[in-house]
């Protein structure tokens, strides 16, 4: 199921592709054993799982490793070697030696653990073909799973977005609306080197590594383009270890370099004093201003001592930063520190993200009684018709009753159905009189019941590259000034000058070039 290697690709690549490329970066077309997959149990219920091909009974299940959910039981064997996005049916699992008395996972339904005898319906074993192929040696000892009559999940390839929704939280994390904007603004691109602190739960790290990824660093070829990398720092020991484990499990070794470190005091250099050469920085720390001096190009006054200063930044490029702080006081201190340390283009924003749901607003007296239907008049006309009917009936009734006691007046206007209608009826209305719950009613959108109104303030800034007198002298020598008079002025020309210039150009260079010039000028536009 691993795509065969292109003829041009080297052997070195082959080995890597087989075991190393992260499922986050290249999931392939199908799920594979010993790799991360995300089970979508329901809309927002996502469960990360490392798929395991087992050679025999596992934990009492004859089918090998089984995921038990409230939607049924899912042996890993039914989820390996299937296309990503597959809908997976629940299986009737064989508890075998497991025994009925053992404590089951809380969410599980005892009845799902059907005994082998009941699993004799003719339904084909789910995905047995691919399973046999991929589980390989496993098939011998593992019982083939038998699909249950109901219950299913979907299996998705891991992406930073899905991971962020499903990851085991150890801290506050940065969610997609924030990190998507941050990575865009700090120019995290293939080949960039990003510094991130603290790593926390690794939500941002996963998004950052996807953004900068342009191949794994290779030990054989040290030439060519610079490889993107994330340098991440975390001082909380357990979080550091957990995250380090994840980096390995997710195949991100060599792409995320995690350091156990207090960055306020010990800065960002790696491997005993080497500069990461960062192009972009993201600080999600309680006190970013404590870390900022360490992110200078030259030794800032606030740092004592006279050892040689090694900057963790890329000395050849402008460096982009974003700090992420929930409180305005933190922003004030951060911005002040940025100004003192020579950062420019300081900009602060806050991201407000909203999710919207679509619903069919079904209102009307004519609509059948159904869940979610509001059987009240849909407009004034319907209300009037209805009222007039009632009046009619009332008069009719009064006429018939003719002075009799009014004991049954309350029957005149039975309340429009709803509360007293049976559930059976509610589920069978589709199709009646051309009614379909999915096309009737007005399509509207509405927000979620609860919205996040504040995540954090995002402070952005840029630190231009150093530019010395010598640099300037060299540039001046390379691009001397003085021959400008021979060339047109660009920028704001008045119309007449522009026309004249174009005429001259047409004569000089012939039509083809001029047409192209015109096209380019259109881009430039009139000032």
């Amino acid at each position, binding site marked *: 199921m691993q795509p065969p290697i*292109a003829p041009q690709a080297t052997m070195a690549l082959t080995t890597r592709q087989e075991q190393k490329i992260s499922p986050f970066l290249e999931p392939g*077309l199908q799920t594979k054993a010993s790799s991360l997959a995300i089970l979508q149990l329901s809309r927002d219920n996502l469960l990360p799982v490392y798929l395991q091909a087992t050679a025999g009974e596992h934990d009492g299940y004859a089918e090998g490793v089984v995921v038990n959910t409230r939607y049924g039981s899912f042996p890993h064997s039914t989820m390996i070697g299937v296309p990503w996005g597959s809908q997976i049916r629940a299986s009737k699992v064989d508890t075998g030696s497991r025994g009925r008395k053992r404590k089951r996972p809380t969410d599980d339904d005892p009845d799902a653990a059907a005994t082998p005898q009941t699993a004799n319906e003719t339904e084909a074993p789910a995905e047995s073909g691919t399973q046999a192929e991929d589980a390989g040696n496993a098939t011998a000892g593992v019982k083939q799973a038998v699909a249950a009559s109901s219950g299913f999940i979907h299996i998705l390839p891991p992406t930073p977005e899905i991971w962020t929704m499903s990851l085991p939280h150890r801290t506050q994390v940065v969610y997609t609306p924030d990190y998507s904007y941050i990575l865009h603004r700090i120019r995290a691109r293939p080949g960039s080197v990003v510094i991130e602190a603290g790593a926390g739960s690794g939500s941002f790290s996963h998004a950052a590594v996807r953004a900068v990824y342009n191949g794994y660093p290779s030990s054989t070829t040290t030439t060519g*383009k610079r490889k993107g990398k994330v340098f991440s720092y975390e001082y909380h020991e357990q979080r550091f270890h957990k995250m380090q484990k994840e980096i390995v499990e997710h195949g991100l070794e060599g792409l995320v370099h995690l350091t156990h470190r207090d960055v306020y005091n010990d800065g960002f250099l790696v491997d005993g004093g080497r500069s990461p050469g960062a192009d972009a920085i993201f600080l999600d720390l309680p006190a970013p201003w404590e870390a900022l001096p360490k992110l200078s190009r030259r030794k800032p006054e606030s740092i004592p001592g006279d050892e040689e200063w090694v900057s963790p930044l890329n000395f050849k490029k402008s460096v982009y930063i974003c700090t992420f702080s929930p409180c305005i006081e933190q922003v004030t201190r951060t911005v002040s520190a940025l100004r003192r340390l020579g950062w*420019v283009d300081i900009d602060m924003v806050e991201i407000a993200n909203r999710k919207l749901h679509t619903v069919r607003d079904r209102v009307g007296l004519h609509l059948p009684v159904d869940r979610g239907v509001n059987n009240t008049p849909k407009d004034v006309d319907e209300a009037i018709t209805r009222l007039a009917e009632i009046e009619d009936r009332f008069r009719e009734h009064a006429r018939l009753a003719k002075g009799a006691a009014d004991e049954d007046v309350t029957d005149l206007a039975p309340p429009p159905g709803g509360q007293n209608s049976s*559930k059976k009826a509610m589920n069978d209305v589709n199709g009646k009189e051309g009614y379909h719950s999915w096309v009737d009613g007005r399509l509207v959108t509405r927000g979620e019941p609860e919205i996040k109104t504040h995540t954090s303030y995002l402070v952005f800034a840029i630190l*231009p*590259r150093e530019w010395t007198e010598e640099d300037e002298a060299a540039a001046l020598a390379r*691009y001397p000034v003085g021959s400008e008079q021979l060339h047109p002025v660009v920028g704001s020309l008045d119309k007449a000058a522009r026309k004249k210039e174009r005429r001259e150009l047409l004569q000089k260079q012939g039509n083809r070039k001029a047409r192209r010039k015109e096209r380019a000028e259109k881009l430039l536009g009139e000032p």
Partner: protein
Amino acid sequence: MHSTIRPNAWVALKLPAGMHRVLQVAPNTTISLGKYGSFPANLIIGRPYHLTFEIQDRQPGEAPRLRVVSPSELHAEALADEASPGCATPTGPGSSEAAVISAVTTGEEFSLVETESGNVVARSNAEQLLDETARQTLTQDEIEALKRGDGTNAGKDVIEKLLLSHTALDQKTSFSLAKYKLLKTKKYIRRFQVLPIDVPNFANWQLEERDASKVLDMRAEMIGLVGCWANVHYGGEEVFLEDPQATTEEGEEKLPAIQEEQLRGRWLVVDDTCGALVAAMAERMGVLHPEESDSDSEEGQGGEEEGTKAMTTGEDAEDSDTEMAEAQDPTPSEPTGDATPADAANPKPRKPRASDFAIPFSQTNTITVIHSASQPNLSFLNYWGFDITSPCHLPHPLLNHLLNLTWLQLLKPELDTSYFTPPLVADAETLAGWKPSRRGNFHRKRRRWARIRHIVDSTRAGNFSGLVCASTMDPISILKHTLPLLAGGAPVAIYSPTIEPLAQLADCFSVSRRTAWTSGSVAEVINKSAEELERWPGTDDFPLNPSLLLGTSIQTSRARRWQVLPGRTHPLMTERGGAEGYVFTAWRAKPAEGRVEAKGKFKRRKTEAGAVTVGAEAAAGVVKAETGDAAVEPEA
């Protein structure tokens, strides 16, 4: 991105008022910034981005000069405010403006700035201030104070009053001086900053200052969301199909076959933003900006160059070509440079000459644009030196990574002449007898045929890693034809300036539609094969097969910008309005065949005594929501 401003690069010059001027920096030209002055382009070429330059007055007989304004100078005011104790009241006593007054000397200018918005409401210099009316309204003492450059608040207040009277603001509005801030500036601040034209800068400029409708009002937040949700990223080392070495006598049979297993990291795009969306994707995939080698820092950075020249042949070729382009005194407005043989588009096989049927496109890390006109409109890519209409092109990463085809070629290739007409063939002798121009034409046609074939066939092979749209077309119609082309689990991200098209799209995947579909109660669906259902043609009730997408969702994001100044931190008072912008996201599902029912057995465990079983009807198989969610909701 390059670390320094390269000759002929497109840049944005940020002017003091916050506006940008976008232009190409042609060497040996003069760049004019209108009233801010002009300067030789060569003074910024080879310099770093993001420095702030100040145009210096030109002394007779001297070369024009730019001064680099230091960050401490740029932040002087804010830092001074911070240092002063009463920083919360900008015009209050002890604020740094006191010092300002002492300098009513030559060439200085005062401006009154509205503290909230930062707008300059009045500007004047000292000489002008002391005009006749001023002399009438001021006492002799005040005038003296002003002339002396008296550093008292009295002097400052006088200036403020005068400035306001100049604009007649004081008569129209009841104003409080505290609303304004007095600034001393040079006559015009002739400062500017050079920003690179990358996607964030370009998109902002297009949105805020040019024509937002061209990019469908797509804000930075949306570009970020679409890119992430569609999982757009570097799609792997480039892989090329082998040159079949087809002779001119060989036709169709010699075209290299698509090798499906090689096709990886490919994104499908529908772009009605003139290429802004494609540029954003290309930037995320590392194929927008020409490769930056370490030797980029040629401008005398000494030792660091050594040992970095070893690059792949492709990059090497590219680099030397760029050098060439620089050397030959380029014409200002020619982003794509001059003609080089089209084969230069194919940097990898630098063999003697690629045959007509050699496929120049990488099989990985590609963007496939489907367009509705016969040519795609990707004109904004010109800002990055890529011109899709140019037959001959300098090397550019997009050449091997951007594929385009029309909807007709995708869906009805048999109706497309260039796809359908078999390639021209001719034996070597005939060919030799032709005029060079005719021969050239012959080869061009064969090459074009091979490319179109390859693009159409590989696109129709499907298994795309994701779909991205920002289109004026109905998203339902787009998905109808593109969903079958997506790999399982592949994300879909569709941007729309307005919510309505996306709401209609999301409605195609509503719970009730999916439930009806999967429960087997839709007559048309029964007995259809999985393949047929993937290519569901659409009906009124089911415009799309609702089981082909998972986790459909619509969202919007907005960045609220703040002013952060000592004692005056608050959100901006106004921002750009117009279209909000929304993003629809989902993942491609591979539905199981046959009728599938949700399990829906839910128990409230260990709650209070007499725990209720919620969704009992679900257990009876009545509710068949695709996700169990619908069944969990207790029915009141």
